């Protein structure tokens, strides 16, 4: 039953977040300056108001309905399978959870870091780095394979897209050094 309670709590939190996002969206729509509105003509905020209200109402519904959710879930025998792996052991401390999920967190950190730094660091360097880390995270531990594959893939992808499809890929750090 504790997993069900967790499910309901999470639905409540999700509902609250959705409600707040909806209200924030409505607030942003409200702060569009008055002079963009032409009287009698649907302005730039007419459609957003409609969306924001629907979104916020859905969030509010999710926030107040978990009781109903629990009832429905207890009736369905397969409800437990709908829960993710993390919910199976919800009572452990934060540190333990982070430790058990380090792989997931590491992957997202690497992906986000790659997307964040690629334009500045340059495509070849950033891609080489992200490939090395990812091959390793995916269980390839032979270093000569990891490095060889990373270098080869970076070079092939770079040349294909740069020369073949004319995509402007930044050289970043390498470019600066070449210019000096």
């Amino acid at each position, binding site marked *: 039953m504790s997993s069900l309670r967790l499910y309901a709590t*999470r639905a409540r939190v*999700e509902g609250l977040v959705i409600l707040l996002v909806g209200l924030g*969206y409505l607030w*942003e*729509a409200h702060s*569009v*300056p008055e002079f*963009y509105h*032409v009287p*009698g*003509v*649907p*302005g*730039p*905020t*007419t*459609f*957003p108001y*409609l*969306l*924001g209200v*629907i*979104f916020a109402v*859905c*969030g509010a*519904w*999710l926030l107040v309905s978990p009781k109903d959710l629990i009832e429905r879930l207890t009736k369905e025998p*397969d409800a437990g*399978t*709908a829960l*993710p792996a993390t919910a199976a052991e919800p009572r452990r401390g934060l540190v333990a959870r982070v430790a058990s999920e380090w*792989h*997931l967190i590491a*992957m*997202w950190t690497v*992906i*986000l870091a*790659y*997307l*964040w730094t*690629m*334009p500045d660091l340059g495509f070849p360097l950033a*891609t080489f780095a*992200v*490939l090395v880390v*990812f*091959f390793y995270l*995916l*269980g*390839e531990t032979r270093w000569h394979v990891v490095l060889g*594959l990373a270098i080869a*893939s*970076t070079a092939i*992808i770079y040349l294909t*897209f740069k020369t073949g*499809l*004319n*995509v*402007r*890929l930044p050289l970043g750090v390498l470019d600066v050094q070449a210019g000096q």
Partner: protein
Amino acid sequence: MLEQLLGGFAIALQPTNILIALSGCLIGTLIGVLPGLGPAATLAMLIPLIFSMSPATALILLTSVYYGAMYGGSTTSILVNIPGESASVITTIDGHKMAMQGRAGPALAIAAIGSFIAGTFSVVMLSLVGKPIATYSLLFGPAEFFALMVFGLCTVASLTGTNVLKSIITTCFGLMIATVGIDLVSGAARFTFGNPFLSDGIDFVVIAIGMFALTEVVVTAREVRSGVRAEIIEPKGIWVKWSEFVYSLPSIGRGTVFGFLVGMLPGAGATLSTFIAYNIEKRLCRNPERLGTGDIRGVACPEAANNAASGASLVPLLTLGLPGGGATAVMLGALMMLDIAPGPLMFEKHGAMLWTLIASMYVGNVLLLVLNWPLVNVFARVMRVPAKYLMPIVLVVSTIGVWGLNYSDVDLVITGAAGVLGYYMRQHKYPIEPLVLGLILGGKMEQAYRQALIISDGSNWIFFEKPIALVLLICAVAFLFLPVILKKSKQFAAARATAEAS
């Protein structure tokens, strides 16, 4: 008319033009395979090339690339569960499951066959009834369009989710993202927080790659690590069996007809047609509970709809000058650069050109089938590359897909955020497809909504006074709440169980 068509064939079958069509199909297929680079982006990249060509050759190149890219998009859906473009999102549901069961070959083959049948059908229809039928789309005013889009979104919401409320939430969120940027009517900057990179709005590719490609990379990586990643069974037969072909033939037929009808409506486009066709298929076919578990009909139907709609979307483009989607919009731009203004007078003014285009579409369909016969084999083998090597490459290529759009840092950051959000949504049963479709349709939907309100002096009753709009809205609500009403029916329980398993 037959004479004109034969004249068109005479030009389309010249050796140079066949060569152009062949390379166009090949380029289109190869680029369509790359996630994020769909038909619209591919066509846009080719525009500088066509200046040096004669108008007929240029048109042949554009249509063959368009066809090739539409087909190529389904390949990645089937093999790596990442739609190459928005119209093949639905194909991932059954296509990828088939690949996991060792049936990648038949899935790719039925996609090629379905595309061929539907493509040929739509070209025949285009040449027969294109002109008279164009008047039919004039019946659709802004109110009807708005209702049509509401209908489309509701069918998607009821199809993809297990919980209607969550589907509505994600659809709505997609529409909200679509409102970011400068309002084209009034010029007001909305939800940009003063960031100039946001004033152009957020391209759906940016979100789609984050939500589909990045999450797929992470989900697969976790499966590889924990050892639950199902080993891909070596494809047994590459080509489709005769019994499977007969089994999926009715689905191809339905997908073709619905795809053509929906695709002909300007603004609806191929994406919407696949969603609607799949949903209708689910209600009409025998054993609907099998759809979603790797059923070959789940590939045949949307792929047929996709290609029928691609052909059909040329009807409003050529007769009304209204593009049905991103790719046809780029084609419209290219046509105008070639000094051909599509519109009601196109059949009179540029008749020869038009028939060449239609003839080249027949040729393109045949070439695509011939080309894909050997390629099915090649693509099915790509599947044998272990995920631990394939997935990091997918990550890098997807990043290039986003970067190549606008060369904007902000796009990359948004993709990352969409990836994290998409991962959470996938883990907690919030469907992603409605969000992406909402984002695609948002701009047009708002435009139609506002135009309708201008016509009615701000009264929302206009959507209930127009008969077509009213019927569409009633159908939309019915689709949305049908699952709730049918909850107790056995058939629905089975369909729901399969949806939950996906």
